[in-house]
Structures are given as structure tokens and as C-alpha cells.
């Protein structure tokens, strides 16, 4: 197995806050691995530790089997985009890539190649300070690709992109994974990851909550739940509860039922003559599954508690 | 204006750097004054002016004032917060006025502490170094008119250096460049003046450079023989401050934030 990113037992403390609490995972090649968790869960810290920017109190983070500082050509091992704004505004985009290329002993030709690949050729002569956010993201990706690394790591690449930019980013990431690279993408936008990521690493409060494929995660979140649409909500709740189901009211005319399968529900409701207009096996979204997992790990919960996302979807 | 003032005051007191710089102003001034008062001896420097010796630390303390005033404005440019500030206080002159008032106020208070501390050190140390009645020196006292003028003038001097630095900061925007300009004008010109091989130019520098002219206010002996009178000298520094603030204001108005 090709070694890409291996993280074992990372622990890091900033003053009182425990940012990473024994985090371990590895990233596989040829797929997009989503790295998700609420704000402050430790995603960016983990990425900084992987890149040797921050030191961990305990544990190791290896890239290609070595600690980052020991890599001879780091950008040929891993390309990373942490902060698209990390530029000197007065330097031209092409020159930004040029000094990076020089730091790796790469020829200037390589700069033109990555500019072309990210569609920035025409804007390469402009100062990076004048770039829009989308262009800065592209420039950051160009920098990450400079060493043509087998491993790529992007922190919130979808942030602030317009729909066109998102579409570009999505297909770009897919393309990179299809080439056999390992791609680690942190994001809050579950909908983006649902369609694109193959594997998920979910963290909360510095701990790994799930290390699973997207398909498995969706399946686990959807299991045994059936949505019932009915005008006679109270009666339905009573009938189903009596039959041994766990019932949650999700809106004025929908119930989420667990503990009974759809056939059994239809039978119980028919028996009790409770009218219902719809019965559907619940298909959880990734966002819902994520909310479920991270609920306990959310640190900065707003005072106004959000309704479960699934309920909103049905209600709308 | 009062809201802008309140906002600026809140900005100033909610970050650590200004407090440290104000503390640095007091510490540097008193420490340098104490050092110089303790090593200056008569005979040797009997021609010196005890008030001026005691207040020498102001020359060092002003570096902290310059740092504070420059930071108050350039920190906003380097973080982009200036756009938030201008959104909250769209009138450029009000914003600049509020900043100037806050810098002046805090420097006046810290400067008064620094100057009084320096005078106390001089009063305690200088008689032991031979600056006694036998050599024609009275103990330092604020009841002595020229000494009071020198003390009050030194506090005003610090405030004017603050306003000057603020003006440069607004005009230049970059912290490193602004500090470099202020240090060049305040410190390097007098150094060049000291060594100037041309008497005419030496006198010109003593009359017109911000520090030499401004510190004329500290002189209490042979006032008439000085290149420039005490209040006139402080007035020259006032002109420098006014000029810098005017340029800063023009830049603030005419250039995009």
C-alpha cells in the first residue's frame, strides 16, 4: 500500500483548549477523502501539523512515510492549500509560483503548466492582490500542483466560490483523484462532499468520530427510519407508539418513525384506521448524518437550536 | 465626534500594544533620565542645566510615543480594519480628529507621569553629584518658573511628537515606512546637526528640526543664548505636527482606503 498521509495519536493543546485529542487516520490514494467537523474541531490544526507548521505535543503525522520536515522535495510529495489569501498582494501571480518553483528546484516551465491547468494563464501577469477570491483559490491550487505531488490537501476549497467556481472545483478534485492521487478536502458543505467524496473523516473536539466511506455513512444514518405523512398526527403517534415504534414529530404533518419497517407501519395505521397520505423509507442526506454524529461535538452551538435538517426538507 | 472618540478609546484599550507602549514611554523616560542624572557630575559638566539633565529621558521616551501614534493608524491599514472604521465613521476628518485626541490624551497623561518621575530622580540624584548651591545650583522645584515651563513643555512636546507621528502614519500607511520616516526626521536630523561641519547649517537644524527645536522648551539656563526660544521651539514642532496631520488628512480624503 502506498503511504500517503498517516496520522497517529496527535495531541495538541493551546493553553486551556485541547485542539487535538489523540487523532489517528490515514488517507488513501485514488479517492477524495472528506475531512469534516464543526468549526474549531481541529481540521486546520491537523493540516498544519501534517505540514510541520505547528508542532504536535504528542503523536506523529507522516507524509509518504516521513515527517514533513525531513522531506527532500516537500512539494513533490504533498501539495496543500490552506489559505488562499496567504499571498503578498504586491507580487504578480506568476512570480508567486516562480519563487515556489525555485524553492523546489523546479523549472519555470512548470509554472506555466500549472497556470494552464488552473486556467490562470491570462491573469498570471496581474498582481495577486487584485485577484478575486475564486482566482486566489485557483492560484493556491496551482501552487499545490506545482510539484505534481501524489497527495493533495485542501482546507475549505469551496469557501466563497460562486456556483461556476464550485462546479469547476468539484470536477477538478474528481480529476485529481481519478489520476490516482490522494485528495484530502476539509469542508463544511456536506452537499459538496456527498456527491464528490469517497471517504469521510469526521472529527469533533479533536477526536475522530467516524472514518468511513460516504456510502456506509449514509446507510447508517438512514437505517430503520420511515417518514409518515398524515393529517391525523396525534392518532398516528398513539397508534405507532402502542405498536412499539419510536416516533418523532418533524412537522405539522410528518412523523419520523423508527423501530418498525414500512410494511408494518402501513399495517398498523390501516388497522387503526388512521389516514396517511405518504409513507417513504427515509434517505438521509450526508448533512443529516453529519449533524447526528457531531451533535455532541459541537462546541459553539447557537442559542437558537436549529431544527433537524431532514424535517426542514420535508416541510419545505 | 464623541461617539468616534469613544470608539477610538475602546479600540485603544482593548489591545495590548498601546498599554505596553505607554508603559514603555514612562519606563524609558524615567530610566534614561535617572541614568543620566546619576552619571553627570560637577565639576565636569558644571556648565549644564540641571532641569535639562533631569528631563533628558524624554529623548528616549518619545520613541514609544512615535510607536504608539504610528501603530494607532497603521495597524488598521495592515489588517484592513480601516474599512470597518470608515464604514462606522465615514467623515475622514472626524476619524482623524478622534484618533488625534485619543493619542494626545493618553500621551499627556503618561507623559506627565514620566516627566514628574524624571524630575524627582534629578532632584534626588543631582545634588549628590556636585550640583549644589556651592556651584550655583538650586534644588529642582516646580515652583521655579522656568523648571515648571520645562516640565509642562516636555509633556506637550511628547504629545506633539505623537501628533506628528500620527500624521506621518496616516500619510504613509505602512507601519515600517512610517516608523522609518518618523525616526529619520526626529532622531537622525539632530544627530547630523550635532556633527554638522557648517555652523550656519548647525544653527538652522537646531532651530528647525522637530526634536532640537521642540526640546528648546527644556532649557532653563542661558535661555537667551539658545538658537531658538523655548516656546518658539515648541511652536516649530507644532508646525511639523500640523503639517504632518494636514498631509495625512489630505491623503485620507483623496486616496482610496
Amino acid at each position: 500500500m502506498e503511504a500517503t498521509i498517516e496520522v497517529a495519536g496527535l495531541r495538541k493543546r493551546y493553553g486551556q483548549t485541547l485542539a487535538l485529542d489523540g487523532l489517528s487516520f490515514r488517507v488513501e490514494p485514488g479517492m477524495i477523502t472528506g475531512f469534516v467537523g464543526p468549526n474549531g474541531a481541529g481540521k486546520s490544526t491537523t493540516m498544519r501539523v501534517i505540514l510541520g507548521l505547528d508542532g504536535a505535543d504528542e503523536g506523529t503525522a507522516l507524509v509518504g512515510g516521513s515527517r514533513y520536515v525531513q522531506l527532500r522535495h516537500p512539494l513533490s510529495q504533498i501539495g496543500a492549500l490552506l489559505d488562499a489569501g496567504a499571498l503578498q498582494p504586491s507580487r504578480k501571480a506568476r512570480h508567486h509560483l516562480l519563487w515556489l518553483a525555485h524553492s523546489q528546484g523546479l523549472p519555470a516551465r512548470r509554472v506555466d503548466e500549472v497556470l494552464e491547468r488552473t486556467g490562470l494563464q491570462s491573469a498570471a501577469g496581474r498582481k495577486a492582490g487584485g485577484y478575486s477570491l475564486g482566482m486566489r483559490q485557483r492560484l493556491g491550487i496551482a501552487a499545490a500542483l506545482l510539484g505534481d505531488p501524489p497527495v493533495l490537501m485542501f482546507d475549505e476549497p469551496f469557501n466563497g466560490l460562486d456556483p461556476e467556481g464550485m462546479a469547476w472545483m468539484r470536477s477538478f478534485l474528481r480529476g485529481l483523484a481519478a489520476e490516482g492521487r490522494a485528495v484530502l478536502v476539509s469542508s463544511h458543505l456536506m452537499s459538496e462532499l456527498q456527491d464528490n467524496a469517497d471517504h469521510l473523516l469526521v472529527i469533533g473536539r479533536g477526536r475522530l468520530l467516524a472514518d468511513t466511506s460516504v456510502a456506509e455513512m449514509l446507510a447508517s444514518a438512514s437505517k430503520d427510519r420511515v417518514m409518515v405523512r398524515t393529517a391525523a398526527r396525534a392518532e398516528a403517534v398513539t397508534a405507532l407508539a402502542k405498536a412499539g415504534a419510536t416516533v418523532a414529530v418533524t412537522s405539522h404533518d410528518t412523523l419520523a418513525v423508527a423501530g418498525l419497517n414500512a410494511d408494518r407501519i402501513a399495517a398498523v395505521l390501516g388497522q387503526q384506521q388512521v389516514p396517511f397520505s405518504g409513507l417513504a423509507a427515509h434517505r438521509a442526506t450526508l448533512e443529516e448524518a453529519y449533524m447526528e454524529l457531531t451533535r455532541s461535538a459541537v462546541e459553539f452551538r447557537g442559542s437558537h437550536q436549529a431544527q433537524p435538517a431532514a424535517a426542514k426538507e420535508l416541510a419545505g | 465626534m464623541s461617539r468616534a472618540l469613544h470608539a477610538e478609546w475602546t479600540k485603544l484599550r482593548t489591545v495590548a500594544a498601546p498599554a505596553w507602549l505607554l508603559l514603555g514611554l514612562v519606563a524609558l523616560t524615567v530610566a534614561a533620565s535617572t541614568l543620566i542624572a546619576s552619571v553627570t557630575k560637577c565639576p565636569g559638566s558644571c556648565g549644564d542645566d540641571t532641569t535639562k539633565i533631569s528631563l533628558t529621558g524624554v529623548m528616549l521616551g518619545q520613541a514609544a510615543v512615535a510607536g504608539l501614534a504610528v501603530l494607532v493608524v497603521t495597524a488598521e491599514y495592515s489588517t484592513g480594519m480601516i474599512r470597518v472604521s470608515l464604514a462606522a465613521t465615514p467623515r475622514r476628518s472626524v476619524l482623524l480628529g478622534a484618533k488625534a485626541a485619543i493619542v494626545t490624551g493618553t500621551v499627556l497623561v503618561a507623559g506627565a507621569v514620566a516627566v514628574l518621575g524624571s524630575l524627582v530622580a534629578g532632584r534626588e540624584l543631582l545634588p549628590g553629584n556636585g550640583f549644589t548651591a556651592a556651584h550655583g545650583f538650586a534644588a529642582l522645584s516646580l515652583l521655579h518658573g522656568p523648571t515648571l515651563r520645562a516640565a509642562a513643555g516636555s509633556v506637550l512636546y511628547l504629545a506633539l511628537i505623537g501628533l506628528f507621528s500620527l500624521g506621518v502614519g496616516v500619510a504613509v500607511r505602512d507601519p515600517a515606512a512610517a516608523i522609518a520616516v518618523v525616526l529619520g526626521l526626529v532622531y537622525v536630523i539632530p544627530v547630523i546637526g550635532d556633527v554638522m561641519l557648517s555652523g550656519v547649517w548647525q544653527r538652522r537644524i537646531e532651530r528647525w528640526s522637530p526634536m532640537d527645536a521642540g526640546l528648546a522648551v527644556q532649557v532653563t539656563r542661558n535661555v537667551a543664548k539658545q538658537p531658538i526660544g523655548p516656546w518658539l521651539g515648541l511652536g516649530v514642532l507644532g508646525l511639523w505636527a500640523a503639517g504632518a496631520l494636514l498631509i495625512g488628512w489630505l491623503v485620507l480624503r483623496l486616496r482610496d482606503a
Partner: protein
Amino acid sequence: MTQLGTPYRSDLRAGRDGFWQVLRAEWTKFRTVRGWAIALVAVAVLTAVMPILLSTPAKSNDNVTCVRRPGGCFVGGQTIATGPAGDAVTDTFYFVHQPMAVSGSITARVSALRASGNATGVPPGYPEALATQPWAKAGLIIKASTRPGSAYAAVMLTGRHGIRMQYNFTQDIAGNEPVASAATPRWLRLTRAGDLITGYESPDGTRWTRLGTARLAGLSGTVQAGLFVTSPDFIESQGSGDDRVDLPTHATAAFDGILLHGGLADQSWAGTSVGSPPAGVRPTLKCASGGRCKGLSAGGGFTSADGRYVVGGSGDIAPYEPDVDPIDVAFLATLFGLITVIALGAVFVTAEYRRGLIRTSLTASPRRGRVLLAKSIVIAGVTFVAALIGAAIAFHVSEQKLIANGWAPPVWPDISLTSGAGLQIVLGTAAIAAGASVLGLAAGTIFRRSAGAVLAVAGLLVIPFILAHVLPLAWADWLLRLTPAAAFSLQAGVRHYPQVNTVCAPYHGCFPLAGWDGSVVLAAWVLVALAGGFCLLRRRDA
């Protein structure tokens, strides 16, 4: 579902790894920001223009210009002669002499070197003015002629520097016995073989120790040999600025056991006051308002009885050091360029912290020490070149202007750009700039804020000059020995000799450390600051 693709293999050939790549990347970084290039041009322009501006209106006034009268050139009552090497020298002493042939020797016992003469005009607080001067000299001398500035070699007893052999003004050899009391008699001997003079000393006239030899170029035929006594001006400044005392002093010494070989027939001892300014040139004692005193030369003379000669004299045989070093003073104006250099050095690293670019840099080059070193080399290199260009122009033009303004030979040296002193000034200015830029860079790494870094480093460099003017001189001296400002000694145009007593005041362009010694202090600061920056850069999370 776990889908495993074929791991990606790049067909990109890996570039070379190493420090060179980091250096090249930092250079690319520097040259691709236009503001920095402009700042660099500003450094060159400021370094060139400010010293020129300073030297343009600098007319040397009567106090320091050479007054030409019959008998030579006089500055403030001192005779300025031109030494064998063409430098300005002081050559004033009382000489009891006889002609000496191509080979010969002179031997004598010297005792009781003491201050003498009247002591009027000594201000209170300067009792040392009345004591025997440390560099009062009494001994034997062989000199080409009695003309001031002619070649010579001498062995002597000094007031407080033991027995010395000196020749041709600049050369000074310490004797074996470092502390010889002026009261203790010593035997001294000089031998001549053509142009080769050898000096000896002895405690008893039988056991002789060789002090050294001097080859005096062009010393041929008959020369003058004999006894001499001289005592330099007492110059002292305790306080700052104008509290300065400058008094002539006078010393006498007794000689006996005098033995002259190689003397000419029918000759006897003659006394000559060598290099004494004629009456009217050296004013009688006069104290200026600030306590600055210039007094009369007491002249000299000798008496003899029973082979014992008592000789009295005043003056000095030494290189002439003018009070003011005009080229150094002009080059202090390079401080303007230096502040720009410091700001540039600081910004070269703080710009990376401002927007998080440092993370990209450290991702590309994870070995942080290398990044810091590469940055230092780049910033030091570019500022060195910019300051070098500026300093060369400044030197060339300033030197011409200073000479046109009266700062000219024989009192002041005419330094050529390609001479040792000229190169030291120009290269030294560039080296100071390079050092200051790295100090700025290191401070920027430590503070991560440009304002703080510039304030700290520029303060460290400039404030010693401000304080030097208000502190007592002894303290000012230490300040200019210990702070990075010590490196300004590189810009000295006037050479300072330990055997010359002068008041070394920074506002006259004199620094306590000589030449390259000062740059060692700056280098030490740079290394300490870089080490501090490196430790923090390595320890801190980026």
C-alpha cells in the same frame, strides 16, 4: 465501499534539493516585489546624497585650517609638519644634539622625567593637568635633520607607558619593562649603521636589551643625534559637548653618562627647539567661555653641569590627529539610508506574517533555519550592493567637496577611493548596511511586526548617537563600544593612534573602537539576533 485507485506517480523529474534552491526562491521573492526594488534604489540614493549634502556647506574655519607662516603650517598654535610618509605629524620638542656620521651610537642614562613649568590656567577638577603626562617623553633620538617632520628613530622613557622605541611618528614599540617609573633611572642606547637604527635599554648600563630596529628610508650622510624631552598637551573632556580642556604641558628630565660614538670633530651639544611655532602663532593662555583652554607653549631649554644635562621641553613627536574627522562626519548621514535598510530587512520577513505567506514558505522549505539564512543572505547581499554604490558616489563627491572647502592636506589626509582608508569607508558603509538589514530581518522574525522591529533596531543604532551628546564622554564611549553603532568606526578617515592623546568624541567623527573592531561588535549583534530569531522561528507554530 472502499475504492482503491492506482496510486499516482509523477513523471515530473524532481529538482535538486538543497540550500541553493531556498536561496534562489528567496531571491525570486525579493526581486518580484516592486516596492522593495524602489526601497533599494532609495537606499542607494540616500546613501549617496546625504553625505554630499552634509559636506557641501562644510567650510573649515580658522580654528581648524592650517595657518601658513614662515616655519610651517599651524593649527590652533600647533605646528603641523609633513612626515616621511606624507602624513600630517606633530614634531615639536627640545633637542640637544650633535651631528653623527654614517655609523655611530649614542648612550645615556635618563632619570627624573617630571612635569615642570608653570601651571596657570588649569580649571578646577583637572588635577591630572599638573601631573607628568602619560605620553611625556625623554630619551635619545637620531633624526635626519632638525627640520620638523624629518625621519627619526628614538628610544625614550615615557610618563606612564614605560620604555618605548618609536620611529617615523607612526611606529611604536613597547619596551620589555612595561611600567618604568619616571623616577627610576634607565640606560638607553641608539646605534646607527647607515639607514638602520637599533634601540636598546638597560637597567644598569651593562645588561642591554634590544628594543627594536628601524630602517629609515633615505637616511644618509650626517644626521643629528642627541637628547630630547617633550610633553604633549593635556586634553580632557569629562562632560558632554564643550566642557573640554586643552592645555600645553612641559616636562624636564636629567641625562648623564652620555656617550657619543661617531660624532664629528670639534662639535659640542647645541640646543634647538624643534617645531616650536614662532611667537604670535601660538596664543598665550586663553580660556573660552565653555572652559575650553588653549595655552602657550613653554618652549624648552637645557642646562649642563659635570656631564649632567637637564633638558626641558614641550610638544609631541607623533602623528597629528585633527579634532574633526570630516569624512566620517559626512558619512554619519548614511544613517538615513540605514533606517531604510532596517525597514526593508524587517518587512522582508514581516510581510510573510501579515497574510500567512510564511506558511507557504515553510511548507515549501520545511527546514526553517535554511529559510532564515537564505533570507539573511539575500537581504544582506542586495543592501550591501545598494549601499556600496551609494557610498562610492558619496565618497568620491564628498571628498572633493571637503577638500575644496579647506579640509585638505597637510592637516587632513586626501583619501583616494582606492586607498586602504577609502576602501574601508566605502566597503565599511556597505557592510554596516548589510549588517543592519539582517538585524532588521532578525528583529522582524522575533517580533513578527514591522513597526516594533524597525523601532527596536533603528533605536539601537541611532539612539547611542543621541545619548553620546548628553552623556559624559566615558559613558558615551562605552555606548559606542557595545551597541551596533560601534561599526561606524569603519567610516573613519582619520587614523587614531594609541600613542596620541585626543578626545575621542563621536560628534567629531571619532569612535572608541578602531576600524574593523567595531564591525565585530555589529557582527556579534547580528549573530545573537539571528540566533534568537532562529530559536523562535523553530519553536513557534507558524
